[in-house]
């Protein structure tokens, strides 16, 4: 499975772990399709950041594509 990377520097830190976010490959899923993507994640608790531009951009595009499949 190919990995798409959506990592970018971010000012957000994990509030509960007090850690900077680091790139990590995670699986996201929709309509039965699983994608391995590289996102900014808290290295301790695994909190995954989905920034606004990703949610309303590429992610929405893929969601709609999968819904029409």
């Amino acid at each position, binding site marked *: 499975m190919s990995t798409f990377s959506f990592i970018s520097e971010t000012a957000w830190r994990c509030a509960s772990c007090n850690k900077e976010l680091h790139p990590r490959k995670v699986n996201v899923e929709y309509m039965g399709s699983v994608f391995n993507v590289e996102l900014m994640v808290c290295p301790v608790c695994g909190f995954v950041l*989905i920034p606004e531009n990703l949610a309303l951009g590429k992610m929405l595009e893929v969601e709609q594509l999968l*819904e029409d*499949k």
Partner: protein
Amino acid sequence: MEQQQLRKLEATCIQEESPQCSAACPIHIDVRAFMACLAGKDWRGARRVLDRTMPFADIVGRICDEPCRQACKRSEIGDPLAVHRLERFCVTTQPMVLRSPRLPAKGGSVAVIGSGLAAMTAALDLARKGRTAVMLTSDEQIGGSLRQYAEEMLPAQVLAVGVETLYSYGVILHFGCSLNQEFLATVRQDHDAVFLDRDCRGLATLAVDCTQPDPVTLAIGLDGCFAGGGSTANGFSVMKQVEDGRRAALSIERYLQKVSLTAQREREGVCPTRLFTQIAGIPPLSEVLPADPAAGYTAREAVAEAARCIQCECMECVKQCAFLQEFNDYPKRLVRKIYNNEAIVQGTRTANKMINSCMLCGQCTVICPHDFPLNTVCRTTRANMVASATMPPSAHEFALQDMEFSLGTFAALARHQPGRDSSRLLFFPGCQLAGSAPQTVEQTYLHLTRHLDGGVGLMLGCCGIPAHWSGRQELFHRTMQTLVAEVGRLGDPLIVTACSSCYTVFKEFAPQLTVQSLWQLLDKMELPANAAAPPQPMAIHDPCTVRHEPQIRASVRNIIKKIGISTEEHPYAGELTDCCGYGGLMQFANVPLGEKAARAKARRSECDGLAYCAMCRDNMAATGRRVAHLLDYLFPAASRQDPLLRPNPGFSGRHENRARLKQHLLTTLWQEEPPMNPAHKEIKLVIAPQLMELLDKRHILEDDIRKVIGQAEQSGRRLVDPENGHFLASYRPVRVTYWVEYQPGRQGFIVHNAYSHRMILPGEAK
């Protein structure tokens, strides 16, 4: 959709029917395209149109007797197009652009007796098809009667070009033949088929009756022999020669192929057309006459005359509908796309968005000269999509959740009038009026209870139309059953609906219920004494659901008159009224298009707007239009706020209003304890108006935001931006993950942003 149904639907839409001119042309020249090219100074394009269909365009273009001119739609309002003058301009100024190819020789030899235009056309058409064509004429030149035209009309040189054309396609020409009785016998022996051009000297000596060929095939009594052309009782028509030559060539081609001479020839020659073209409003411009009639049109004159062509088409539905305009198509093509979309097994269903964007309002059906039922097609298709699990989940989910809320503990209510145990009537304001103007619902209800006998019950809820529109048949029927049972529990009173959608749904799907529109009831009642009319004239915006309810529309107008509001009618009211974008849940499945539809409806009049559907009112208000609900004037708010300035409450506001209304009425009218709010309801939010508008478009409710913050504050799972102290948290209550950027403030949590996605992140419930 079955293919048979598709064909039937496709045939209902007439946009692709021939324009009157082409239908009246015996060889169906695309006159409309010809005019468009000339008007755009595309000389080559214009000539190409002629070359494509007209044989010997240099000759025919000079002398065409333009049977299309009589049929021109412009003749209904003034002068028809000067088609012949334009053809002449074209062929005299622009040489041939398109030379039809000659197909490979395929055997079969055809004799063409005579050399008039019918013979020339038959010989040319057969030669193009790869047949051996032999022209046999007693004359020394070609042309027959065409040679009688004056030199300036049809120069001999141009006729000579016709001979060149025939030679170039391999036609064999024999001049000076002596026609006699043996001649035909010999010709029939030497050839497989024969065409006799009646525009031929000495044809009578052949002793064969050519006077009454079969009108469809032009066959005469002798096997393999066909006849046409020449003069008729109406005289000599150039286009009749061309038509007969072409018709005979086609018959001979079929004869040589040994297939039916008659099958499917209805569209040949002059034929009827069903194309409708609206000419009202088209200025009746006079025909452009050439300054020098002998020389014909100059380029400038030709452009001016061709520009008078109204480019006949129907497009009546598309002209009015925001949905059809958005997808830039007419029903015939859309229904084909819908059919193809349904047929896809693996691959992308590209028409889903379109199917879910129709307002299902039926305006196009009323406008259509043949009542194309696009709304039924789209709605049925949605039901099929739901049944086959191909409906995109995101299209209607938000609207269906809104419906669920209206039917749920915090918003729904069904009671007899306080202090009574039976109801003669049951007021059903509908979910959207309760969401838009709860105080008006209360005032209206109190008015009904004060002025009507026998008890007026109240039912807050939803008629289920969102489920119907979204194709959720099962959910819709379940909702309707529950509602019918609830009405039954109250003793089957007469239901009084404020919302016309509820009214039509009950009438169509619950015939066991008795229903009346609030407007018809109020029309017969004493109106509130404090009803206040604004001084300025207003434009009535009928909702799309009263399209077929003239009595409700009449009652509304009576009430408006009684309370002294002056109105200005506009054409897109009544039967032709637009949908505001809520219909068919368009505004949910296609947010930007929903806004366009609301704007289109709002723009129908310059006057302030007067609606009597809560969604029409709110959607138009959201576009910035000054628009009020009729109930706002019948039952003025205690605050004296101008109803024209009442803002769109948005989705969160409607939830809140419905819940507050139930709470308020339960406590004040029935002295009952309202249902307890869940814990997260206690969370106070501070949201700027612009952000609120954005959240509405993103289909994010304040309640969703409360859930995110509640969960983040409780668990501590959130991100922080150390620079500004903002938190960012996410939560997935069911099928959508909401993200909220916020910070604690003195008045409550200040919300800076919110967005959502449907993809499932690691650790989230599926």
